[in-house]
Protein backbone atom coordinates (compact mmCIF):
# COMPACT_ATOMS: atom_id res chain seq x y z
CA UNK A 1 0.00 0.00 0.00
CA UNK A 2 1.39 3.40 -1.01
CA UNK A 3 1.51 6.04 1.71
CA UNK A 4 2.24 9.67 0.91
CA UNK A 5 4.34 11.39 3.49
CA UNK A 6 5.87 14.85 3.59
CA UNK A 7 9.49 15.73 2.96
CA UNK A 8 10.08 16.31 6.67
CA UNK A 9 9.01 12.79 7.54
CA UNK A 10 11.13 11.36 4.73
CA UNK A 11 14.15 13.29 5.99
CA UNK A 12 13.46 12.19 9.53
CA UNK A 13 13.25 8.59 8.46
CA UNK A 14 16.46 8.84 6.45
CA UNK A 15 18.30 10.38 9.35
CA UNK A 16 16.65 8.08 11.92
CA UNK A 17 16.89 10.88 14.46
CA UNK A 18 15.22 14.21 13.95
CA UNK A 19 16.60 15.93 17.05
CA UNK A 20 19.96 14.38 17.86
CA UNK A 21 21.15 16.97 20.34
CA UNK A 22 19.26 18.58 23.17
CA UNK A 23 20.35 22.01 24.31
CA UNK A 24 20.44 23.45 27.79
CA UNK A 25 20.99 26.93 29.14
CA UNK A 26 23.98 26.80 31.45
CA UNK A 27 24.02 29.60 34.01
CA UNK A 28 27.35 30.15 35.75
CA UNK A 29 27.68 32.63 38.61
CA UNK A 30 31.26 33.63 39.44
CA UNK A 31 33.29 36.52 40.79
CA UNK A 32 33.27 39.43 38.35
CA UNK A 33 37.06 39.35 38.05
CA UNK A 34 36.90 35.76 36.87
CA UNK A 35 34.21 36.33 34.23
CA UNK A 36 36.61 36.27 31.27
CA UNK A 37 38.42 33.24 32.61
CA UNK A 38 35.21 31.20 32.87
CA UNK A 39 33.76 32.54 29.61
CA UNK A 40 36.93 31.44 27.82
CA UNK A 41 36.88 28.08 29.57
CA UNK A 42 33.28 27.48 28.52
CA UNK A 43 33.93 28.61 24.97
CA UNK A 44 36.50 25.85 24.61
CA UNK A 45 33.61 23.35 24.76
CA UNK A 46 32.13 24.33 21.38
CA UNK A 47 29.80 26.90 22.88
CA UNK A 48 28.85 29.41 20.22
CA UNK A 49 26.68 31.75 22.22
CA UNK A 50 27.42 33.24 25.61
CA UNK A 51 26.16 36.32 27.42
CA UNK A 52 27.85 37.83 30.43
CA UNK A 53 25.79 40.01 32.76
CA UNK A 54 27.17 41.92 35.74
CA UNK A 55 25.42 41.13 38.97
CA UNK A 56 25.73 41.38 42.75
CA UNK A 57 25.77 38.68 45.38
CA UNK A 58 23.32 39.22 48.20
CA UNK A 59 25.60 38.42 51.11
CA UNK A 60 25.56 41.06 53.81
CA UNK A 61 28.54 43.35 54.34
CA UNK A 62 29.15 41.82 57.76
CA UNK A 63 29.36 38.32 56.30
CA UNK A 64 31.74 39.51 53.59
CA UNK A 65 33.99 41.18 56.13
CA UNK A 66 33.98 38.04 58.27
CA UNK A 67 35.01 35.97 55.28
CA UNK A 68 37.64 38.51 54.27
CA UNK A 69 36.00 39.28 50.96
CA UNK A 70 36.31 42.74 49.49
CA UNK A 71 33.10 42.90 47.50
CA UNK A 72 30.21 40.91 46.18
CA UNK A 73 30.44 41.80 42.50
CA UNK A 74 29.45 38.83 40.39
CA UNK A 75 29.21 37.88 36.75
CA UNK A 76 26.42 35.68 35.46
CA UNK A 77 27.35 33.80 32.30
CA UNK A 78 24.50 32.42 30.21
CA UNK A 79 25.67 29.77 27.75
CA UNK A 80 23.73 27.60 25.31
CA UNK A 81 25.24 24.16 25.75
CA UNK A 82 24.76 20.79 24.09
CA UNK A 83 23.48 18.24 26.55
CA UNK A 84 26.10 15.69 25.49
CA UNK A 85 28.86 18.13 26.51
CA UNK A 86 27.42 18.89 29.93
CA UNK A 87 29.18 16.10 31.80
CA UNK A 88 32.58 17.27 30.58
CA UNK A 89 31.74 20.91 31.25
CA UNK A 90 30.56 20.14 34.77
CA UNK A 91 33.72 18.25 35.56
CA UNK A 92 35.83 21.12 34.27
CA UNK A 93 33.85 23.70 36.25
CA UNK A 94 33.90 21.62 39.40
CA UNK A 95 37.67 21.32 39.13
CA UNK A 96 38.16 25.04 38.52
CA UNK A 97 35.74 26.05 41.29
CA UNK A 98 37.79 23.97 43.70
CA UNK A 99 41.28 24.90 42.54
CA UNK A 100 41.33 28.46 41.16
CA UNK A 101 42.02 31.14 43.75
CA UNK A 102 38.99 33.40 43.99
CA UNK A 103 37.32 31.28 41.36
CA UNK A 104 34.53 29.73 43.37
CA UNK A 105 31.11 29.77 41.88
CA UNK A 106 27.87 28.01 41.16
CA UNK A 107 26.63 26.60 37.87
CA UNK A 108 23.38 24.96 36.89
CA UNK A 109 21.53 24.19 33.70
CA UNK A 110 17.97 24.54 32.50
CA UNK A 111 16.78 22.49 29.49
CA UNK A 112 15.54 24.27 26.37
CA UNK A 113 12.04 23.26 25.32
CA UNK A 114 11.89 25.01 21.95
CA UNK A 115 14.11 26.92 19.63
CA UNK A 116 13.39 29.38 16.87
CA UNK A 117 14.40 27.74 13.58
CA UNK A 118 16.84 25.13 12.40
CA UNK A 119 19.58 27.63 11.61
CA UNK A 120 19.57 28.89 15.18
CA UNK A 121 19.61 25.33 16.44
CA UNK A 122 22.58 24.54 14.20
CA UNK A 123 24.42 27.60 15.44
CA UNK A 124 23.80 26.94 19.11
CA UNK A 125 24.62 23.25 18.89
CA UNK A 126 27.65 23.89 16.68
CA UNK A 127 26.42 21.33 14.16
CA UNK A 128 26.66 21.92 10.44
CA UNK A 129 24.09 20.34 8.13
CA UNK A 130 21.34 20.46 10.74
CA UNK A 131 19.01 22.44 8.49
CA UNK A 132 18.78 19.66 5.89
CA UNK A 133 17.33 17.35 8.50
CA UNK A 134 14.23 19.40 8.96
CA UNK A 135 13.32 20.03 5.33
CA UNK A 136 13.49 23.28 3.42
CA UNK A 137 10.32 24.77 4.87
CA UNK A 138 11.81 24.97 8.36
CA UNK A 139 15.15 26.43 7.46
Amino acid sequence: MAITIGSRAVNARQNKNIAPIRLELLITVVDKKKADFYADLLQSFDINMQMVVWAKGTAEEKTLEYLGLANNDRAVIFSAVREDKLDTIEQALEEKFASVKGGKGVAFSIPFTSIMGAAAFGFLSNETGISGMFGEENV
Partner: protein
Amino acid sequence: MKNANYQMIFCVVNAGFSQVVMEAAKSVGARGGTLIHGRGTANQEAEKRFQIVVQPDKEIVMILVKKEIKDKVLLALNKAVGLETAGQGIAFSVPVDRVVGIAEDVGEDVGEDTKE
Protein backbone atom coordinates in the same frame (compact mmCIF):
# COMPACT_ATOMS: atom_id res chain seq x y z
CA MET B 1 26.17 15.80 38.41
CA LYS B 2 22.57 15.21 37.41
CA ASN B 3 20.60 16.76 40.20
CA ALA B 4 16.88 17.36 40.19
CA ASN B 5 16.71 18.49 43.81
CA TYR B 6 17.07 22.18 43.10
CA GLN B 7 14.90 24.81 41.51
CA MET B 8 15.85 28.29 40.42
CA ILE B 9 13.54 31.07 41.52
CA PHE B 10 13.56 34.25 39.48
CA CYS B 11 12.00 37.21 41.23
CA VAL B 12 11.53 40.43 39.27
CA VAL B 13 10.82 43.45 41.47
CA ASN B 14 10.93 47.22 41.30
CA ALA B 15 14.40 48.67 41.84
CA GLY B 16 15.32 48.90 45.50
CA PHE B 17 13.34 45.89 46.67
CA SER B 18 15.98 43.18 46.32
CA GLN B 19 16.76 43.33 50.02
CA VAL B 20 13.12 42.73 50.86
CA VAL B 21 13.18 39.77 48.48
CA MET B 22 16.22 38.25 50.16
CA GLU B 23 14.85 38.83 53.65
CA ALA B 24 11.63 37.05 52.72
CA ALA B 25 13.48 34.19 51.04
CA LYS B 26 15.94 33.81 53.90
CA SER B 27 13.11 33.70 56.44
CA VAL B 28 11.98 30.37 54.96
CA GLY B 29 15.36 28.76 54.43
CA ALA B 30 17.02 30.20 51.35
CA ARG B 31 20.41 31.78 51.91
CA GLY B 32 22.08 33.33 48.93
CA GLY B 33 20.99 34.99 45.77
CA THR B 34 22.31 36.88 42.81
CA LEU B 35 21.03 40.27 41.81
CA ILE B 36 20.83 41.52 38.23
CA HIS B 37 19.61 44.95 37.14
CA GLY B 38 17.13 45.17 34.34
CA ARG B 39 14.57 47.34 32.66
CA GLY B 40 10.94 46.36 32.38
CA THR B 41 9.17 46.71 29.05
CA ALA B 42 5.52 46.46 30.01
CA ASN B 43 2.84 46.92 27.39
CA GLN B 44 1.61 50.51 27.75
CA GLU B 45 -1.91 49.60 26.62
CA ALA B 46 -2.09 46.91 29.27
CA GLU B 47 -0.85 49.40 31.85
CA LYS B 48 -3.75 51.73 30.99
CA ARG B 49 -6.27 48.89 30.91
CA PHE B 50 -5.27 47.56 34.31
CA GLN B 51 -4.60 51.04 35.69
CA ILE B 52 -1.17 50.24 36.98
CA VAL B 53 2.14 51.98 36.36
CA VAL B 54 5.11 49.76 35.78
CA GLN B 55 8.33 51.30 36.98
CA PRO B 56 10.89 50.52 34.28
CA ASP B 57 13.87 50.01 36.59
CA LYS B 58 13.81 46.43 37.79
CA GLU B 59 15.89 44.10 39.85
CA ILE B 60 16.00 40.39 39.08
CA VAL B 61 16.96 38.19 42.00
CA MET B 62 18.00 34.63 41.20
CA ILE B 63 17.75 32.26 44.14
CA LEU B 64 18.76 28.62 43.92
CA VAL B 65 16.74 26.60 46.43
CA LYS B 66 16.03 23.01 47.26
CA LYS B 67 12.81 21.71 45.74
CA GLU B 68 11.28 21.12 49.17
CA ILE B 69 11.35 24.78 50.15
CA LYS B 70 10.53 26.23 46.73
CA ASP B 71 6.80 26.70 47.43
CA LYS B 72 7.50 28.25 50.82
CA VAL B 73 9.90 30.74 49.25
CA LEU B 74 7.42 31.66 46.50
CA LEU B 75 4.66 32.19 49.05
CA ALA B 76 6.93 34.35 51.19
CA LEU B 77 7.93 36.39 48.14
CA ASN B 78 4.31 36.87 47.12
CA LYS B 79 3.52 38.16 50.56
CA ALA B 80 6.54 40.45 50.80
CA VAL B 81 6.91 41.79 47.26
CA GLY B 82 3.85 40.56 45.34
CA LEU B 83 1.88 42.65 42.85
CA GLU B 84 -0.26 44.06 45.65
CA THR B 85 2.80 45.57 47.32
CA ALA B 86 5.09 48.45 46.43
CA GLY B 87 7.66 45.97 45.15
CA GLN B 88 5.23 44.91 42.39
CA GLY B 89 7.12 41.71 42.01
CA ILE B 90 6.55 38.56 40.10
CA ALA B 91 8.36 35.35 40.86
CA PHE B 92 8.55 32.02 39.12
CA SER B 93 10.62 28.90 39.42
CA VAL B 94 12.24 26.70 36.83
CA PRO B 95 13.54 23.19 37.31
CA VAL B 96 17.30 22.87 37.28
CA ASP B 97 18.85 19.85 35.63
CA ARG B 98 22.37 19.87 37.00
CA VAL B 99 24.11 21.81 39.72
CA VAL B 100 27.83 22.37 40.32
CA GLY B 101 29.41 24.29 43.18
CA ILE B 102 26.82 23.76 45.91
CA ALA B 103 28.07 22.28 49.16
CA GLU B 104 25.46 19.65 50.15
CA ASP B 105 26.48 19.66 53.80
CA VAL B 106 25.37 23.21 54.45
CA GLY B 107 21.89 21.92 55.15
CA GLU B 108 18.96 23.58 53.49
CA ASP B 109 20.80 26.79 52.85
CA VAL B 110 21.82 27.00 49.27
CA GLY B 111 22.91 29.71 46.95
CA GLU B 112 25.96 31.42 45.65
CA ASP B 113 26.89 33.00 48.96
CA THR B 114 27.20 29.63 50.65
CA LYS B 115 30.33 29.03 48.62
CA GLU B 116 32.13 32.12 49.80
